[in-house]
C-alpha cells in the first residue's frame, strides 16, 4: 500500500470540517480566513500558520487524496474539477480545465513549473507600474518555493509525445527546452491530471496544506464562500454555504467566519466572483475585467509508430521560440507544449462525430498532440474576458474570441503542423470543426490558410485562468496593491492568479506560489508580533 499522508493526518487529528455534513448553522473564528486551498491559498495558509496565526481555510471542493485517486477519468473529472472538467466561457467557445478540490488546480495539474518570464515582468513594470516586479525582487520567492515543492529538472527521458515535439523542433532549428517539475520520487505514470496516486506530485494537498494543518489550521471542505460582509472600510464576517453532492447546489446550513483578515485565493474566476457578490467598492469597475486564459489551440498528428500519450510524465518539453522571437506587445505569441492523451480528453477534444471521429479515435495509440498557448493581455487588442455573475450568483466568464486571437491561432496551427511533419507525422489535423487530416506540409499550409475562424470552429481550451483582480500601485487601474492588499478595504487581500495584470506566457503555478509567498510573508509580519521578531 502507498501511504496516504492526508488520511494519516486525519487520523492524527487534523482539524477538518465537512461543511456538507453539517446540519446546523455555525460560526468559526480565526486570525485569518483563507478562501481557497489551491496554489495561492495553500502557500498562504502554511506561511501564516508558521507565523503562529490561527487560520481557517475554506474550500469549495471535496477533500480527496491518493487513496481516492484511481487514474480513471470518469471518477476524477466530476470529483476534482469545476463543471466536471467542462467549465466553459459564456458562448461555450473555450473549455476551461480548473480544479475544484482540496489543493485546487495543483491537485490535478500536469506539474509544469516555470518562473514568471523576465519579459512578462518587464512589461508589468513598464506598462502596469509594478515597481516591485523585478527579477531580483522575485528570485528569493521563486527559490523558496522551488525548495519547498522540490521543483527541479526532470532527469527521466521525455515520453514519446513530448520527445516528438523536441525532435520536430530540432529538425526545424526551433529551440526547445526541458520543463522543470514539482515532483519527488515520480513513478512516471502519466496520470497527474486525475490526482497523483503516489503522492509524488508536490501539490498543495501533500505539502503546504499538511504543513498548515499540522500547525493547528482548520480546513473546511465543501463550503462555498458566498459573500463578505463589510462595515465601513473593513470586512467583519464572511458567509459560506455547504456544497452538496457532485453538482454544486447549495446546502442549508450556514457558516459564518469571523477573522482579523481575509484572504481570497479562490482562483481567477472564484475570487472576482466573491468580490462581485459582496458588492465591495469598485468605482472603476475593475473587478472581473481583464481575465486571461492563454487561449490554447490544438494540433493532432498520426505517427507511424506508437506514441502512447497516456503514459509517462505529461509535460516535459516546451518551446518558447514563438514568444521570445516576437515583440511582447505585437501580434499574439504562443508557447508550445503537449498535453497528456486519455480517452475522455481525446474523445471530447477531437472534433466531429460518427465514423470520422471513430477513425481518429482508432488511431489513439499513434496520436501525437501539440498545443499552442496564446499569450493574451499584452496588446491593446487583447483585453481578455470579464467575469460576471449569473442570476443565481454563480460566476460566468465572458471571453469573446476575435480576429486578433484568430490570427495567432492560424499561425499556431501552421507552426504545429510543420513541427509534426518534421517529426515524421503521417497525417496532421488542426483540431477545428472544418479541418480534415492532411498528409503533407504543403497541403496543410493550404488547408490551414482556408480554415474559417469564428467562435466554436477551432477547439479552444484553457488550463490557466489569470487576472480579474489586478495588482498595481494605482487604485484607478488595480484592485490590490503590490502587497496583495485591497486598495479600498483594510483587512482584505487577494493571493492567487487573479492578481496578474496580464497572462504570464507560462504555466502559472510557480508564479502564483511565489507571489502568494511574498504576500503572505508581508501579511504575517503585519498581523503577528512573533513573525516580526
Amino acid at each position, binding site marked *: *500500500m*502507498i501511504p496516504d499522508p492526508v488520511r494519516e493526518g486525519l487520523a492524527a487529528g487534523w482539524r477538518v470540517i465537512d461543511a456538507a455534513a453539517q446540519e446546523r448553522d455555525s460560526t468559526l473564528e480565526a486570525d485569518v480566513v483563507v478562501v481557497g486551498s489551491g496554489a495561492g491559498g495553500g502557500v498562504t495558509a502554511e506561511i501564516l500558520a508558521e507565523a503562529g496565526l490561527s487560520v481557517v481555510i475554506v474550500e469549495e471542493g471535496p477533500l480527496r487524496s491518493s487513496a481516492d485517486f*484511481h*487514474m*480513471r*477519468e*470518469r471518477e476524477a*473529472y*466530476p470529483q476534482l474539477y469545476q*463543471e*466536471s472538467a*467542462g467549465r466553459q466561457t459564456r*458562448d*461555450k*467557445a473555450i473549455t476551461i480545465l480548473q480544479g475544484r478540490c482540496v489543493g485546487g488546480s495543483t491537485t490535478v495539474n500536469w506539474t509544469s513549473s516555470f518562473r514568471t518570464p523576465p519579459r512578462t515582468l518587464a512589461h508589468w513594470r513598464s506598462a502596469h507600474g509594478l515597481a516591485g516586479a523585478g527579477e531580483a525582487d522575485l528570485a528569493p520567492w521563486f527559490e523558496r518555493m522551488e525548495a519547498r515543492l522540490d521543483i527541479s529538472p526532470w532527469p527521466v527521458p521525455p515520453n514519446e509525445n513530448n520527445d516528438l515535439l523536441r525532435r520536430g523542433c530540432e529538425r526545424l532549428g526551433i529551440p526547445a527546452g526541458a520543463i522543470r517539475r514539482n515532483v519527488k520520487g515520480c513513478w512516471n*505514470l502519466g*496520470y497527474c491530471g486525475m490526482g497523483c*496516486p*503516489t503522492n509524488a506530485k508536490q501539490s498543495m494537498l501533500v505539502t503546504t496544506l499538511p504543513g498548515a494543518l499540522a500547525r493547528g489550521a482548520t480546513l473546511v471542505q465543501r463550503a462555498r464562500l458566498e459573500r463578505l460582509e463589510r462595515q465601513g472600510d473593513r470586512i467583519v464576517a464572511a458567509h459560506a454555504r455547504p456544497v452538496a*453532492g*457532485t*453538482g*454544486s*447546489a447549495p446546502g442549508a446550513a450556514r457558516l459564518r467566519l469571523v477573522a482579523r483578515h481575509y484572504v481570497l485565493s479562490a482562483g481567477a474566476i472564484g475570487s472576482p466572483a466573491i468580490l462581485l457578490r459582496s458588492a465591495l467598492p469598485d468605482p472603476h469597475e475593475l473587478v472581473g475585467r481583464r481575465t486571461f486564459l492563454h487561449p490554447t489551440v490544438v494540433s493532432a498528428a498520426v505517427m507511424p509508430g506508437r506514441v502512447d500519450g*497516456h*503514459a509517462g510524465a505529461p509535460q516535459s518539453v516546451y518551446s518558447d521560440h514563438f514568444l521570445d522571437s516576437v515583440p511582447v506587445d505585437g501580434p499574439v505569441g504562443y508557447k508550445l507544449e503537449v498535453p497528456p492523451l*486519455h*480517452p*475522455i480528453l*481525446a*474523445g*471530447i477534444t477531437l472534433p*466531429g*462525430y*460518427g*465514423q470520422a*471521429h*471513430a*477513425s481518429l*479515435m*482508432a488511431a*489513439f*495509440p499513434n496520436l501525437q498532440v501539440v498545443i499552442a498557448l496564446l499569450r493574451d493581455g499584452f496588446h491593446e487588442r487583447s483585453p481578455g474576458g470579464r467575469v460576471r455573475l*449569473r442570476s*443565481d450568483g*454563480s460566476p*460566468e466568464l465572458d471571453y469573446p474570441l476575435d480576429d486578433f486571437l484568430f490570427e495567432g491561432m492560424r499561425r499556431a496551427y501552421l507552426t504545429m503542423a510543420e513541427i509534426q511533419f518534421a517529426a515524421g507525422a503521417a497525417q496532421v489535423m488542426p483540431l477545428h*470543426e*472544418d479541418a480534415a487530416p492532411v498528409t503533407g506540409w504543403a497541403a496543410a499550409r493550404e488547408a490551414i490558410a482556408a480554415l474559417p475562424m*469564428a*467562435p*466554436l*470552429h477551432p477547439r479552444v481550451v484553457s488550463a490557466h485562468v489569470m487576472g480579474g483582480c489586478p495588482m498595481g500601485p494605482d487604485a484607478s487601474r488595480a484592485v490590490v496593491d503590490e502587497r496583495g492588499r485591497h486598495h479600498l478595504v483594510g483587512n482584505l487581500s487577494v493571493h492567487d492568479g487573479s492578481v496578474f495584470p496580464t497572462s504570464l506566457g507560462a504555466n502559472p503555478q510557480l508564479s502564483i506560489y511565489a507571489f502568494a509567498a511574498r504576500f503572505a510573508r508581508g501579511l504575517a509580519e503585519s498581523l503577528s508580533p512573533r513573525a516580526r521578531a
Partner: protein
Amino acid sequence: MATRRQFLKVGLAAGALLAGAGWLAFRGGRAPGPGYQWLDARSAAIVKALVPAVLAGSLPVSPDARREAVRETVAAFDRAVAGLSPAIQAEIAQLFALLGNGAGRFVVAGVRSAWAEAREDEVSAFLHRWRTSRFGLLRAGYQALTQLLQASWYGNPASWARIGYPGPPSLGGTPS
C-alpha cells in the same frame, strides 16, 4: 448552400423556440425519469436517439454488447449532467426542451420523425446542420451534445479495447 434569408428565418425561429423552451423547461420544474438522476423520460429518448449517430463506428458490433453500451452511455450522460452546476443544468434543460418540442425538433433540428423513431441518418444530418450552422448557439448545442456523449462512452472501459488504450497501470498490488 442556404440563402441568407433562410438562415435568418431559422435563426429567428431558433431564438423564439429557445425562449419558449426556457419557459417550458421551468414550468412546474422537471422530474427525473425512472432510473435517472437528471434526465426526464423525454430527454432520455433524445439521448438514446443520438447515441448511434454520435458513436457510429465506436460501439460494439454484437447486438447484446451494443445494447448494453447504449444503456451505459445514456446512464453516464445522465450522471454527467447531474454533476454540473445548476446554471449549466438549466441551459441543458433548455436545449432538451427545444429538441423535445415537436416544432423545435422539426424546424430547428430538421428531424421529422419523433425521436424514438428517428433514423441514424436523420440524426446525423441534424448534427451536421448544427455543427456547420452560422449560429453560434446551434454550434454550441451540437458540441454540448456530442461531447457529453463522447465523454460518456470513452469513460467506459468497454470502449478502450477498440482504441488500443490499455487502461490505467497497476500500482503493484494496490487495489485500485
